[in-house]
């Protein structure tokens, strides 16, 4: 099956700092999504970005499908950005058709 690797696994930053999270995937994909799982466990959609660049406020994402990676940029971090960031790609195979998730980047923003 497809492999999805995220880096770094953990990241601790001070409020106001910028960060870049990376997602590498091992095969061609039709669908790539970034999620934020907040401390209450909710999975919040950040970007649906199979290719190209998108921006939403302080967050932006870029996917280079031909090179099989995606980047999530967080600028001017706030404590509410803390949580786990997941990259997920749609993969058909191994049974169910659904998103294959990376292991996530655990981000802690300190005041």
């Amino acid at each position: 099956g497809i492999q999805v690797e995220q880096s770094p696994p953990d990241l601790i930053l001070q409020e106001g700092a910028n960060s870049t999270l990376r997602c590498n995937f091992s095969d061609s994909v039709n669908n790539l999504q970034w999620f934020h799982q907040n401390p209450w466990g909710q999975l919040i959609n950040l970007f649906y970005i199979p290719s190209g660049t998108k921006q939403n406020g302080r967050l932006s994402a870029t996917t280079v499908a031909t090179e099989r990676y995606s980047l999530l940029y967080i600028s001017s971090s706030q404590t509410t950005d803390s949580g786990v960031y997941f990259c997920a790609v749609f993969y058909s195979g191994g049974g169910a058709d659904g998103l294959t998730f990376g292991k996530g980047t655990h981000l802690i923003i300190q005041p």
Partner: protein
Amino acid sequence: DTAVSQTPKYLVTQMGNDKSIKCEQNLGHDTMYWYKQDSKKFLKIMFSYNNKELIINETVPNRFSPKSPDKAHLNLHINSLELGDSAVYFCASSLGLADYEQYFGPGTRLTVT
């Protein structure tokens, strides 16, 4: 105005019991899913249900069975619960398979004692 909802939010039960988790989406989507998040926060697809076709991840025990009374609902039934079933279960939906954004419910934390 919740898009994807799940009930209950928490479920505590004993080994051997049978339980159900309900999922409803009001987005008009054609495809629904169930995912399992383990204690290490790893998320894995369990089922996808698209146009009345159920696709099962080969690693899911047959004690788990999704049932869809209509397009807006995909309920998860679990028989003979085991300690290892303790996890957070997420329901999700999308317009279709593959090329569509998925939206997740709030999750149901299942604890088997």
